[in-house]
């Protein structure tokens, strides 16, 4: 699958995905990018450069916290952890997203083969 065919992320959804990825425990930036790509079966394109301003934003809202640590292969990396407020935000946003997706699905009607 070439990069061109991957789906561009909708505005605002990156935050949701990052929070979701952190639900299983602390990860560093590269790990988050990788996890999003893998769990979406390589469908979603995350520009790594765009990840960091998003992390910065989430951190300043205190939905995630960060600390320097050491990665599996002994490299220094900054690890992000979900905070209690972040967990709540994830819950709200997930619900919102599901409702939105369902509503759009209903409007678009049953899936048809092109």
């Amino acid at each position: 699958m070439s990069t061109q065919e991957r789906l561009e992320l909708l505005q605002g959804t990156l935050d949701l995905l990052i929070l979701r990825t952190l639900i299983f425990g602390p990860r560093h930036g590269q790990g988050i990018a990788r996890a999003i790509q893998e769990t979406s079966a390589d469908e979603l394109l995350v520009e790594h450069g765009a990840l960091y301003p998003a992390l910065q934003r989430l951190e300043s809202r205190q939905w995630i916290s960060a600390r320097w640590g050491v990665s599996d292969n002994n490299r220094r990396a900054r690890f992000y952890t979900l905070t209690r407020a972040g967990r709540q935000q994830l819950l709200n946003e997930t619900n919102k997203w599901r409702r939105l997706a369902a509503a759009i699905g209903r409007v678009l009607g049953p899936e048809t083969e092109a």
Partner: protein
Amino acid sequence: MSFGRKPADFNAEIESHIELEADRLRQQGMTAEAARLAARRAFGNVTAAEERYYESSRWAWFDGLLRNFVFGLRTLVKSPGFSAVTILTLALGIGATTAIFSLMNAILLRNLPVRQPSELVLFGDGRAAGDTTALPNDDWRLFSYDMLHQFQRRTRVFSDVAAVRSTPFGTHGSVASGAQMEKIGVELVSGNYFQALGVNPALGRVLNPSDDLAPGAHPVAVASYSWWQRRLSRSPTAAGTKVNIAGTMYSIVGVAAPGFQGISVGQAPDLWVPLAMEKQISPGWTGLDNVLFQSLYIVARLSPGVTLAQAGANTNLVFEQIVHQYAGPKATLKDLEQISHAHIQLTSAAAGLSRLRRQVATPLKILMAVVVAVLLIACANVANLLLARAGVRRREFALRMSIGATRSRLVRQLLVESSLLGLAGGGLGVFLAWGASTLLVLMVSAGPDPLPLNVAPDLSVLGFALAVTMLTVILFGTVPALRGTRVDLSSSLKESRGIAGTSARNRLARSLVVAQVALSLTLVAGAGLFLRVLSNLEHIDTGFDRNHVLVVNVDAGSAGYQDDARLHRTMLRLEDRVSAVPGVQAAGFALTVFAQGGWGADVTVPGHTASDSDPDVDHNRVGVGYLRAMRMPILLGRDFSSRDTLGSPDVAIINETFARTFFPGISPLGRTFSIANGWPNLQVIGVVRDAKYISLQEKPYAAAFYPYAQHPGFLENLVVRYTGDPGPLVRRIRQATAEIDPNLPIADFMPLGQMVNASVQSRRVVAKLCTLFAILAVLLASIGIYGVLSYAISRRTNEFGIRMALGAVRRDVLWMVLRDTLGLLAIGVVAGVAMALACGRFVESLVYGVRPDDPVAIAIAVLLMTAVGLFAGWLPARRATRIDPMRALRYE
């Protein structure tokens, strides 16, 4: 938190990300180099990410501001001429505004330096001073010693009720063992005065209630801080110093806190003495034991939680009881009807009370309006300069925008430059204002000593200056910044000869010039108005001859004289002795001369029914030589003579208005009248010409004069008419006085002409300052005209070149440019005349004697403005005609 995170930390994180990604790719089998490149590719633009991080940080805007600031400073330093002119223009505008504000602040706005000034209230509005013995029958302003005590006992809404004598005493005394008599300003206050105001001693103690119990028994005084500094050289042992005033030895018990000058702004007593010593300080005007001798201001401190309205209700309830008690059980119906109108209006005394305030409030407000107009003109000039500069910098802006600067970035930078100019101008302006306001105080002070006003910039003055600066920056900076950055990139970079985009700029600049012309014209017309009013006043017929007259202040009270036969004899002898001095033509005492206030009281004239349309009556006790000394001519009957004595019938000389009003159609000679609640059976022996008595702009008073020989008592003004040189005269009069009593202090020799001039001092200051500011305004406006036309001509050099190449002669070009100027001037002048008329009408409502449509003042203003404007336009126009067509075509 992003707040504390350093960019380096962020960069390290990105670095670590790329390495982690490269590790992963290597594990998948890539070579180290390829993995690294791929990782970088996947990350995207590292610099962009770093920049986005930087922009999101809270310090970015500050950092940007700092950069703009430094850049702006560099730009301004690079064009020193422009910066200097701009800063100076702003400094003049802001400085003038701040100087007037300093004065307003010192006189009108600043609170007294006392504890919780907002709790202080004054009984009445402080519009009267002196004494009265009438039963309260109106809005009441002066109170007796007994009333003070009753209010202290019976009101429940004040934590303290204190009093101060409404007139300060300019008396004389000797300090310590000094033999020399010197001027000492004394204020009589109640014992609890300092305690009520919450003023602490700087040294020793202040007065307390036990200093004000028995009349004559408390010879103590508190010195003012500035007197202690000046006279006692800040001596730490000042407490205990003795001061001899009128034969009583006062002991100074302490020094009041610095800055405290009593509750009257513009008056600064040297000593505060308990009211109980009234008879000793003021032998002529006394009456502590007379419940109706009302001469005090009462100032009280509201109890916590009491509103002004509650306090007013309680005070008036008590006042009504007091007044009824004074009227007694046998009060007539008329008395009862009159005292039912007795009322006290409580007013806030937070900023103190001040006669000065009433005198100068209107002039200051007018001056404020004038300086604001000057400031606006200055702003318009600076805005024009900035517009022109923005025109010159179009290529710079276009270039910067084409390499990525946003418009908002440019606007921000221009605004920072404007703020820099504003701040520099404002800072300089504050310094100008400091000097100017000290000068202003000297100008406003009519007498030889400057008014005791503190005009050094305080927080509110600095705040005001800052606010004015910000406002001016917004006024002059915003539009040029928005206009200047509206750049069409391609055309601006290509632009060489085009005039695209300049017409809008020009329209704006032109409107600014028109506004400047209109405002300046208004100011010139206003200044003209004030000058004419002043000159009318100065040439008004005063009814007396003000030249060659000295008014000598003789303070017999300070020398220990009592109101008795000895005083009377001394006064008569002094008049005789001074009249005999070579060069003296006439000399006579008077209660009041000119502009010293007056003695107002109603008269009862048999056969005349009093009506409200009767003019007020001004009474004066005078010596035999007074009318001759003043050259007030007797029109009918005779002058006073030495035969009018205590033994002979009481006589009076009245003026024309008195005769016309009270004796219409008949000869007043030989008729009698009496002063209400005063002297009966006064026989008219003469009629004197009408004159001005209290001020130059007063409406005619009915006036009556009585010889003091028949009504003895203290008189302090000896009026002396002389011929020749007044210099040696002063010495001779001193000698003559010393022959009669070497202790008799003579304080002042004041030329009558100077007293007349001083009475219109505040008008003179307004007229002078208005003229000064109007000249400044015209100057600024002409600079504006010059600038706009120069710029327009420089843009049209090319066009002129073509015209002249095609055969236009110099006169045509000159006329083209001048027509432009005339157009601007015409609109400005029409608008200005309209504004001048409107403002004149407003000023007329404030200042007596101003004709709003004085045609001379307006004509002069129009002529002046047109002449100066044409000159300012002619200079660049002449330059336009000197254009060499060949050079012009190659221009730019």
